[in-house]
């Protein structure tokens, strides 16, 4: 009986024959308890919240989950670019949020230019091309800027990673200030084409088609990246570079070219995320760059730097936290939802300092 109980305890604590220090086991126990409590709370106990417990209000629960998936999708698009650059080059791209916002602003400017209007256009006049073309332009401009930053400022000091972080911080300060000057301080949205509009009804809830579209885009980006990294020669070289850059170089592969490709790809993903987010979940305003830099950071700290799977897991977890916390906290305390982000960060760091899928540098 004692053996069974201690065996169960050890299995729960993840000991399995290894000699795990007691505080590690305690941390594991706390996390298991926390997860169990959150599930029980959401399913049964959450009656005093704006959503109500999942048992009593299943449609609210489903809606929150779908909202979480939408926001996770955009988190993933932006953070995958960030993690790709870090994984290959050990460069923390602190200007990632600036590129995100800049692409959004360029897309907005070109959309207004195409439509010949000032101010937010009516959704009805925004055709298919009036959204796609600005998106492509924004992404291309930002990719070019990313290439410029990498070639001029980062190429020759490769390997000095703190210095590179400081360089990109300086660039983000300049970019942020210039964006205020050129695009003003008023919050503006990009208008999504009217073809992606309306609602679908299923299981008793109304769900926006544009949210499904965002999820589809994220899946597309994830699938495309997976194909690129696993099935093409470029991807093979990038993965090899992540593991051992000097060896790749020794094999006669032009690593500088691979670095440039990866940096352009990372910048393009920031820009893509910026345009999609600016059309769906956020408006473009000063300060949004810092906000999305935080989102990228949290996702990769949770998921582990340089890992695509980690970015997916991290954005899913973070998206669930940001979407569920405001509606499942007691109504009077809903504004404490930012704590949820910190709690997730703390729990992950307590057991895995390099993130769920990360490895020490």
């Amino acid at each position, binding site marked *: 009986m004692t053996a069974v109980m201690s065996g169960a305890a050890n299995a729960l604590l993840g000991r399995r024959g290894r000699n795990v220090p007691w505080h590690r086991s305690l941390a594991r126990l706390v996390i298991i308890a926390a997860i169990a409590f959150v599930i029980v709370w959401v399913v049964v106990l959450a009656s005093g919240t704006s959503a109500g417990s999942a048992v009593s209000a299943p449609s609210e629960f489903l809606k929150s989950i779908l909202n979480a998936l939408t926001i996770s999708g955009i988190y993933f698009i932006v953070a995958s670019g960030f993690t790709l650059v870090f994984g290959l080059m050990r460069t923390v791209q602190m200007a990632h949020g600036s590129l995100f916002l800049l692409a959004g602003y360029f897309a907005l400017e070109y959309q207004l230019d195409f439509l010949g209007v000032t101010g937010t256009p009516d959704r009805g006049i925004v055709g298919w091309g009036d959204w796609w073309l600005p998106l492509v332009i924004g992404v291309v401009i930002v990719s070019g800027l990313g290439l410029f930053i990498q070639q001029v400022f980062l190429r020759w000091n490769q390997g000095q990673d*703190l210095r590179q972080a400081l360089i990109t911080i*300086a660039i983000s300060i300049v970019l942020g200030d210039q964006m205020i000057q050129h695009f003003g301080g008023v919050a503006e949205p990009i208008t999504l084409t009217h073809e992606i509009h309306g609602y679908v009804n299923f299981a008793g809830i109304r769900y926006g088609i544009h949210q499904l579209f965002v999820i589809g885009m994220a899946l597309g980006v994830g699938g495309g990246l997976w194909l690129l990294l696993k099935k093409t020669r470029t991807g093979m070289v990038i993965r090899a570079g992540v593991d051992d850059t000097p060896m790749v170089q020794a094999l006669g592969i032009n690593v500088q070219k691979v670095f440039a490709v990866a940096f352009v790809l990372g910048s393009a993903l920031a820009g893509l995320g910026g345009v999609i987010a600016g059309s769906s979940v956020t408006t473009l305003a000063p300060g949004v760059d810092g906000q999305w830099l935080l989102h990228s950071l949290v996702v990769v700290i949770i998921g582990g730097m340089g890992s695509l799977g980690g970015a997916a897991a991290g954005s899913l977890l973070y998206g669930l936290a940001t979407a569920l916390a405001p509606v499942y906290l007691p109504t009077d305390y809903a504004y404490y939802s930012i704590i949820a982000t910190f709690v997730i960060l703390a729990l992950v760091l307590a057991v895995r300092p390099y993130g769920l899928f990360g490895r020490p540098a």
Partner: protein
Amino acid sequence: MILSRLRDRAGGAPAGGGTGSSDYSRNTRRLALILLVALALVGVFQGITPDPFRHYFVDVVLTRSLIFGVAAASIVFLSAFGGMISLAQTLMYGVCAFTIGNAVTTGGSKGLNLGWNPWVGVVLGIGVTTALGFLMGLLASRSSGLYYLMITLAYGVIGYYFFVQVTVLSGFGGVNQVRAPDFIGEPTDATNPERLFYSSLVVAVVVYLLLRYVSRTPFGLALQGVRDDPVRMNSLGYNVAMHRTWAFTLAAFVASLGGVLYVWEQRAIAPTAINLGGILNLLVMAIIGGVLVLEGAWLGAFIFVALENYVRNVVFLNNFIEESRFRTLIGAIVLVLVLACPDGVVGLRKVRGALPLALVGAAVWGVVGGLQEGDRGAIAGVIVGAVAGIGAAGLVGWLAGHRDTARGVWSKLLSTGRVPARN
């Protein structure tokens, strides 16, 4: 390159250099210290004159430099002796200021309005911040290098959103009309404006001596061992994570002293003071001064605050840098320094030709600025001119190191189609 050495330490590779800041020639550090003492003496002797420029220079520029310098010194302490770049120090002084604001204010529109004695608020603020620092330091203590930087940045930004969202404690507008102890006086009281300056000066000197002292205690020496080679220190029986945690806690304590002075100076604290911009401001001060020498914190803070106040008076540039474009200028200065002289102004002598060129630039720009814009133009000109000189020296050094590349580019531009053979 000190930053690359930092990386090596963070990565656990055995460091080839000596023990941190002793690498610096004593001359450079002494020069920085003499400069700071001179500035402080300017404040002490000219604070009482009725001249409006000097009045402003002491009561605003020098006082704020001392206050931000205290907070920036906590970044420098962590990076110089612990090998950790922390971006959470802005949050730490913010937490202290918010605690004081909530505890001592009465009848304000925001915050808890507890209305306690200002000194109780100070003790509470420092206590809360230090405890939070211990907790956050513990969570991050198993990381190092870039991970540490990112985790602490996440702390800082999450903290900003916390104070924006939690309207009971602050809300977007922040807490206003925070009372300071009686001996500081009221901000509108024109008779004793230099009291805050003297208080800040005393705190700054105490912090400087404290951090220098700590770096020589057994704890400080072990911390430098942890910075240089965590694996070896671990196998020698030192608890690496706890050394990092206690260092972070001490840094939080120091930053909280900056928070106390900050809230006394501003009489208000709003989340915008600790947003990403505020976080980067403090880091920028540390970078300008050079993140590995304590004196650099106050020097960097002075350069930052002086430019912030006199940016309109920068001659040659004031046509296209208006007041609101201060951040572009400061970003460009940081870029120049990080590219050309990564050890900041304290490490000037490590870049060949930087010191004479910086002096020439400072003299030319300062004299022209002084002639055209008066005292403000002279101060701004000296700073911008020195940075321009450093940038020029860095560019020349880079070109000298890449002579072949430059020649290749040049010959391509001339479209001979052929790179000349190297001899």
